[in-house]
């Protein structure tokens, strides 16, 4: 059986759903990169914290469980900015990157301590588990979560586009992403735009936590770690300099992962990351500044 024939409508739909979730993570990472020039490796741990919150509040009413997830993740995101990123403002990108690695490990260690209080590793997040049920659309089984993920992503991206393009603070954020020092000398308040970017990226991480726990309800300290690495790769492949190209990169790598997952025979899926990363290497050899970025390479940016 050829590889392509294995890609049925089912796989396509699932891949779009996965791409949508990855796109949201890419936006969350891209927003912060835009204003801070910081690749936040600890982004996945925000999602993990949200997933644990959902697990610990699984017997609450769904709306309160979701609210708790949002509050915890946004608070953690803002705390990261205030306690770590702000004091390090002006540090070299290498220092910032390594620092986010450190935050990631600290948060995982904390999660492990909290998780092991009941002497078993892992918690089950069932707040929104019913979304995992499938409905049949024209003979194709579609899980409700796929539809929800796609709709949520489209709505969130549309709202974000409105914010960035139609509001004053959005204009300030775009200016800060394009040229921070000029934006500041025009009066754009650095801490305000950075705070908003961090807040929005926290909101996105909370949404991703909800969407991911539907498919992966068993939450462990390394929850979302693999996804974060894959999304970071997608963001770089798409072009991290621009939010839309980073988002598209995130979507595409999610979509490609889904397709390859469907196309590879079940006993071969261990090769999935290798196949994805081989594609990435090829793309970066051909288009070093990103798949969708034309003109000057990133390194020449002022």
């Amino acid at each position, binding site marked *: 059986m050829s590889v392509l024939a294995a890609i049925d409508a089912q796989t396509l739909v699932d891949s779009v759903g996965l791409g949508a979730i990855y796109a949201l993570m890419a936006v969350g990472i891209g927003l912060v990169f835009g204003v801070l020039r910081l690749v936040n490796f600890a982004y996945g741990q925000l999602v993990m914290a949200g997933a644990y919150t959902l697990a610990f509040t699984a017997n609450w009413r769904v709306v309160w469980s979701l609210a708790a997830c949002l509050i915890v993740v946004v608070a953690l995101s803002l705390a990261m900015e205030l306690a770590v990123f702000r004091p390090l403002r002006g540090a070299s990108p290498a220092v910032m990157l390594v620092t986010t690695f450190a935050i990631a490990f600290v948060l995982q260690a904390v999660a492990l301590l909290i998780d092991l209080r009941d002497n078993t590793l892992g918690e089950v997040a069932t707040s929104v588990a019913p979304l995992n049920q499938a409905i049949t659309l024209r003979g194709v089984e579609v899980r409700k979560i796929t539809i929800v993920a796609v709709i949520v992503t489209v709505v969130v991206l549309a709202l974000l586009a409105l914010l960035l393009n139609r509001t*004053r603070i959005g*204009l*300030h954020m*775009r*200016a800060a992403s*394009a*040229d921070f*020092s*000029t*934006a*500041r*000398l*025009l*009066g*754009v*308040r*650095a801490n305000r735009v950075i705070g908003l970017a961090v807040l929005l990226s926290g909101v996105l991480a909370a949404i991703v936590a909800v969407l991911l726990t539907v498919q992966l309800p068993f939450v462990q300290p390394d929850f979302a770690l693999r996804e974060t690495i894959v999304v970071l790769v997608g963001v770089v492949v798409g072009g991290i300099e621009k939010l839309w190209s980073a988002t598209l990169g995130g979507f595409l790598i999610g979509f490609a992962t889904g397709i390859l997952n469907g196309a590879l025979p079940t006993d071969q899926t261990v090769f999935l990351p290798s196949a994805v990363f081989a594609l990435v290497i090829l793309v970066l050899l051909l288009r070093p500044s990103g798949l969708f970025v034309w003109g000057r390479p990133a390194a020449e940016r002022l």
Partner: protein
Amino acid sequence: MADAALAVRGLEVRYGPVAAVRGLSLEVGKGEIVGLIGPNGAGKSTTLHAIMGLVSARAGEVTVAGRRVLGRPPERIAAAGVALVPEGRRIFADFTVEENLLLGLAARRGRYGRGALSGAYELFPVLGEFRRRQAGLLSGGQQQQLAIARALVAQPDVLLLDEPSLGLAPSLVDSVFDVLAKIRDGGFAILLVEQRAQRTVALADRTHVIANGELRLTLGPGDADDTEKMVAAYFGG
């Protein structure tokens, strides 16, 4: 005497071991244009950057209408009423002309309505004509007009200009100096850094010559035609 709109006293800026500005003092009153000329590397741009908070000063004092601003971040200094037209214009090339001007409003104090940009479009009709166009598509002269307009919409008390005529064709240089002459009655205190010494001396109420980070002498408009004095000013006579 009332406080000068902008007063710099004993300003010292160092880049590592290099002293870029040494003990510089100057004042600009409301409605005045003060020129700052001198050879490359004399410390002209550094002075503007220190006033704007873009580089930190070792010592000295900068006051805007009597309030000390040195050591504050650039956005606070902008909000205190200082606007810089940076060297190389630094417009946002991917943004529309109008978005660039709206960014200028970031530092504006108090409330403003929809007509906040109309003054800029009146002064520079070409910007009104191209307001939906990407700023990067404007010609060099038009981009310079945009950079000046962007600073003016903030309605600053102090306007700092860093070599606004740099890289412009001679006819466009004329238009830049025409604009400065036009806005001098607007009540701004203007500090103009320029390479075009003669034109600056002729335009400004007084022009300081700076070399090696120090003020060397001060020229009045009458000195613009005194070639000997101009040459001596530049070559440390």
